[in-house]
């Protein structure tokens, strides 16, 4: 009888400790306001087009909207944004080099014309690849609306400026040298600032 009681006490203590812990957390979960949404309320139109609730990836059933799939999408997103970061540094190097070569051309050193063209093309490829990685990456889990200016907002505002400037620079490369130059400097300035202001 005593042996049975000792065993019973031990069993009761262990099981009640475990179940009490689970019970407490269970009741806490029932009180909590849990956000279980898989997609953010706000996302860039390019992301919505691909990854939104009715996006191409969902419609074509390449990436159904499930927890597991979103988890792997977020891993893809992280990789894409890491590459976006590295390509960004490489692009900045290209832009600075291009600024130097470009100013030599304006000073009459036409020997560098082919180099300017080559570096320009490579920088453009690198720039638009980096932009694509950001624009078409799967959306984050949340995209909170925060009042005031912060690093990510500044990064996004500046992205609008340097993207427009880069398109203009390329479009006017052989059409209007003056505006081409202004657009190129705007692109470099806003692109460098976008890198500097960004904090993770």
């Amino acid at each position: 009888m005593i042996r049975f009681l000792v065993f019973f006490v031990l069993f009761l203590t262990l099981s009640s400790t475990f179940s009490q812990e689970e019970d407490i957390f269970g009741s806490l979960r029932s009180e909590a306001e849990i956000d279980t949404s898989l997609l953010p309320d706000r996302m860039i139109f390019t992301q919505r087009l691909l990854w939104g609730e009715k996006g191409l990836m969902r419609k074509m059933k390449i990436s159904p909207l499930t927890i597991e799939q979103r988890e792997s999408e977020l891993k893809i997103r992280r990789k894409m944004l890491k590459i976006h970061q590295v390509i960004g540094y490489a692009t900045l190097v290209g832009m600075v080099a291009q600024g130097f070569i470009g100013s030599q051309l304006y000073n009459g050193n036409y020997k560098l014309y082919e180099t300017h063209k080559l570096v320009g093309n490579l920088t453009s490829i690198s720039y638009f690849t980096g932009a694509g990685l950001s624009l078409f990456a799967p959306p984050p889990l949340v995209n909170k609306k925060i009042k005031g200016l912060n690093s990510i907002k500044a990064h996004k505002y500046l992205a609008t400026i340097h993207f427009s400037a880069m398109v203009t620079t390329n479009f006017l490369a052989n059409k209007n040298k003056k505006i081409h130059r202004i657009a190129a400097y705007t692109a470099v300035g806003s692109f460098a600032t976008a890198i500097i202001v960004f904090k993770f």
Partner: protein
Amino acid sequence: MIKRKLLIFFLLLVCSIQAQETTWIINTSKSLITYSGKHTLHEWEGSNQKLYGRALLNNTSLVFNKLAILAYVRDFDSKNSGRDAHSLEVLEALSFPEIKFYSESFELIKDSLLINGVFEFHGKKLNKQIMSSIVSGKNEILLNGTFNLIPSDFGISLPAFMLVKMKDLLEIRYSIVLAKESSS
């Protein structure tokens, strides 16, 4: 007959032990937990004002018998949407949405409470000893303190910026207000 008496005595004992406890609930509007992270280039903070928790207080010894705290990684706000979104990716928030702390071991040392418990974060459980200041009132108990967490201990891969990883340390500050629920 003796066996039956012994069993009844035992059951009464269990019931009386449970009856000596009072439940205290975390007052979410008054409680806050903040983490500080560091990188070579900058420092930042994020706070969570949605803490959920229960404490069971022993009415005789006036020391906690149990303490359970629950927070969700989604509820941390660093005032930077990009950083918060990135944190959720690093912390795999869909698979591991909760941060839990549970303790049944407490020691009152002057105005402080030594808490030995289990911290569950990123799906991993670690034993953690926390020294907390405690201010007890009739209807409210205030727990305040700081402690450190090492993200890599929880299997978290550290995010990098400018190809440099953040420091493998999170400084946690908390201020938890517990309000008396009801006597049982």
